[in-house]
């Protein structure tokens, strides 16, 4: 399991307006493209100087494909990254704060201690 790679997906998508829309509309295609093209890109290096070893587990792919923020939380993805991106994608479909409250409600069965988010 790679919390780092989950975080990297959430981070690189959240900061790019085009990718936010693409992930909202086509999560399966976006996850597949991202893992092939972006997962091994070192953000502060040129495109030729890539990593060679980063990949998702099937469970991680599924959680991302299914927009499953509860599972992402349980996997230890950084909650700030997940929340920010999911608000960007889905708040627009709801009334004021409705999405944020439902997002928390969907996790009400989760108790302390929360999953470790250390990378």
């Amino acid at each position, binding site marked *: 399991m790679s919390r780092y790679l989950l975080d990297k997906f959430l981070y690189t998508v959240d900061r790019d307006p085009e990718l936010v829309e693409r992930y909202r509309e086509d999560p399966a295609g976006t996850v597949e493209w991202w893992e092939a093209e972006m997962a091994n890109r070192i953000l502060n290096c040129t495109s030729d100087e890539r990593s060679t070893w980063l990949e998702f587990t099937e469970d991680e792919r599924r959680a991302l494909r299914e927009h499953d923020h509860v599972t992402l939380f349980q996997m230890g993805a*950084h909650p*700030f990254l997940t929340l920010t991106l999911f608000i960007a994608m889905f708040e627009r479909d709801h009334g004021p*704060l409705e999405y944020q409250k439902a997002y928390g409600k969907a996790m009400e069965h989760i108790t302390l201690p929360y999953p470790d988010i250390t990378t």
Partner: protein
Amino acid sequence: MAELAAVIASTHHPFYYRASTSTGADRPPFADEWVAKIERFRETLTRAEPDVLVMVGSDHFHQLWLDNMPQFLVGKAPFFDANFYNEEREFGLPRMTLRGEEDLAAHLLRDGLDRDFDLAFSNELRIDHSITCPIITLRPQADLPIVPVYTNIFAPPLPQPRRFVQLGRAIREMVESWESDKRVAVIGTGHLSLELGGPRQFGEHGPDPEFDRKAVEWIASGDIEGCLAEVSLDSLHQPGNATHGFMDFMLMMGVAGEGRKADHVDTLDLFHTMEAYFTWYPNGVPGEAASA
């Protein structure tokens, strides 16, 4: 030597800008009270007549990322552009450009390294809402040069709480040993109890009002030892999963000094989180006779 004109610690609520500028049906019912409290808070900085602002905050995965993550970082540059696309998107924050005070930044880096703080630095830093929120609340004209100091309260492993206090104490000594006739205010922002992306988020109050009550008391009374006795990296998970931002308040307690009562204390209980505002005047309240 430079004078430490004011020490200010605050929450940084990214929704203040939108709440305070909205009108009509869009204006939330708590906006007027919030604006009134902010305007009183702003006056505590204005009356200190600062020339330079040291701004303590924490990047929220904007420019700083997990492939290269500093624990403490000083920005040394002539200018700092500010706010990011996702902050415009979610909070409606404006893009800004602030001037930098490179001479003080260089002094903090050199003196800090010599005091065994292995500070990282950045010569091209885009700052985020942890620094622009207090600019918007405390100095909306954004006319003073700044030295940003970023701390890692966000991406574990994190430094220990005592390290934040130690850095705060060092920042105070370093500001007061800066060879300058400038008046410096040190402004830092953090959080009380806060939950982001977890089951306790966006409630009627902050996730742990009892922690908030104790935290305000520690800060207002300068009770660093009492605070350090109760707060650890582990304990901060209990009040809410983003409560490690409280360590920036602990840093500011270090700047203000052990046992130093704040000269201005105010709070506002909002949905999701409690706002808290503190100002200390190390050399007496401006315009009043020195108390000691």
